[in-house]
């Protein structure tokens, strides 16, 4: 990777009456572009890919300028070298899987080819499919071939437009580990469109939130998800912090797994992950309770001491409190409790975490919420 940001976009584009105003920069790794349907996620990806020309602005990928209205630069899609994985696969029906996979390779100069056919086939487990026709593939298989096809065009950046949206739970679980392998093994920057917060938390490094055509937030996922002052995103996902953890060890007596994070250790029901595995968990605001004194005689296993850093706006009877327990987490409490405990910024509190949402990476099931009480 060069020192340049993987994606720099600052564009204004018009799609009929819809206006897209996107401005963000994202580093290496996987950038999740998140928002409700109709917020312009796919439009944004199409602008990056060059399929739609923005009115003005600038797009650069890995330091290479693809569009710049001021300098009159607008590379056509075939010169951008971005791999695009469409929501609906779009495999060529007249070609075999093998020919689909190699379709993009021939247009890339030999010196620019950074993906090896055999390696990609191995990575995505495409070997048994090579002689088949797209029509004979399942939804999950189609998407794997589509990902392989985009990869073998040796792109500077992989664009993925909700590649899991048309799949059922089982097929999703089949694809997710492959996307993680792309991110981790190939070190290819990825822009991943999603409206599922579980996918975003599991896969993302950077989070870009789109709302009604505007990028309202962009930053590392943990940072963005711990913001409690973003009214536009309140309806997008259930409030909750994303926390990076590492599997520290397992407790066989009680069937628990210890997850280490910057604020200490979390105990969750046993995860079938090796010690040292890194993952991200989500702690939903409604699963966090606050106490002024260290609670005793409680069934809650995870009690963390921290300090209140921000008090969110009131919405009805509830309000969100941001607590720093080594990393920021959000607690959703009633307004009544807030007044009775006389909470204020800087105050020392104990956060009781009733549940930790863990996305299992083993591929055997989708998102599972583990309740710890």
């Amino acid at each position, binding site marked *: 990777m060069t020192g340049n940001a993987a994606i720099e976009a600052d564009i204004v584009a018009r799609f009929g009456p819809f206006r897209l105003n996107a401005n963000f920069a994202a580093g290496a790794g996987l950038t999740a572009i998140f928002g409700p349907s109709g917020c312009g996620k796919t439009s944004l990806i199409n602008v990056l890919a060059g*399929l739609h020309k923005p009115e003005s602005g600038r797009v650069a990928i890995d330091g290479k300028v693809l569009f710049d209205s001021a300098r009159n630069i607008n590379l*056509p899609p075939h*010169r951008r*070298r971005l791999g*695009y994985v469409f929501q609906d696969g779009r495999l060529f029906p*007249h070609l075999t899987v093998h020919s689909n996979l190699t379709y993009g390779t021939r247009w890339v100069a030999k010196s620019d080819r950074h993906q090896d056919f055999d390696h990609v086939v191995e990575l995505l487990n495409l070997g048994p499919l090579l002689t088949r026709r797209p*029509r004979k593939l399942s939804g999950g298989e189609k998407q794997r071939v589509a990902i392989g096809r985009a990869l073998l065009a040796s792109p500077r950046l992989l664009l993925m437009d909700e590649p899991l949206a048309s799949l059922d739970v089982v097929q999703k679980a089949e694809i997710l580990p492959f996307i993680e392998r792309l991110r981790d093994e190939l070190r290819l920057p990825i822009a991943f469109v999603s409206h599922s917060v579980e996918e975003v938390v599991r896969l993302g490094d950077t989070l870009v939130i789109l709302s009604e055509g505007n990028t309202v937030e962009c930053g590392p996922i943990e940072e963005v998800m711990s913001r409690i002052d973003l009214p536009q995103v309140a309806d997008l996902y259930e409030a909750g912090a994303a926390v990076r953890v590492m599997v520290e060890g397992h407790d066989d007596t009680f069937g628990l797994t210890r997850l280490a994070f910057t604020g200490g250790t979390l105990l969750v029901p046993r995860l079938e992950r090796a010690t040292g595995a890194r993952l991200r968990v989500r702690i939903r605001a409604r699963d966090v309770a606050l106490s002024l004194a260290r609670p005793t005689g409680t069934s809650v296993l995870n009690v963390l001491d921290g300090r209140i850093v921000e008090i969110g706006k009131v919405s009805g009877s509830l309000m969100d409190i941001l607590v720093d327990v080594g990393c920021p987490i959000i607690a959703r409490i009633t307004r009544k409790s807030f007044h009775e405990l006389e909470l204020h910024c800087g105050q020392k509190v104990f956060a009781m975490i009733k549940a930790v949402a863990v996305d299992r990476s083993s591929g055997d099931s989708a998102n599972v919420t583990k309740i710890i009480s």
Partner: protein
Amino acid sequence: MWSLTELETEAILLSLRVAATAVIASLPLGILVAWLLARCRFPGKELLNGLVHLPLILPPVVVGYLLLVTLGRNGTVGAWLFDAFGITLAFTWKGAAVASAVMAFPLMVRAIRLSLESIDPRLEQAAWTLGASPRWVFATVTLPLALPGILTGVILAFARSLGEFGATITFVSNIPSETRTLPLALFSLVNTPGGEQGALRLVMISIVIAMLALAASELLARRISARLRG
């Protein structure tokens, strides 16, 4: 009884040559026009569409006459063709091919246009993002996917060319062993006293050729669409 007379062989071979030349020569233009009509927006598109369809609606004699006026030795285009390339179309088999091509053109364009319109443009977009320039997208995605329609267009145009009469007789006349195709030979026999026997044989030959062409196209079309569907 079962062997063909010299006249019959001549008419059959001439008909096949005229029809094949007409189809092969007009196919690239047919694909281009079908693509323009299916995929592009430009001023005068409706005019082009009307022009392409004109031979379908006009009496063939009118088309033949217009060809004679423009492509005849004294016509503007015809004179230029002769001066520049030494090509004479009027009263030659090449002229018959031109007449056939013009008359069959609307059928060819319609079939190809329909199949182009049924291609999902998102597949072409996908090819584009994979690094294929628009020309290569056309050659490697659009054209193969349009193949069934192109084949249908070719068969329709070939059949129409084999049967072409009005424009041909007007433009290139009915000259034995030069422009006397099957329909024209049949016409001559019908107008000759005692020609009924020969006319009947030509009718049978026409039917056999038509059936063979139809069967061949069915077979090809099935193979192609089976391959496209995977």
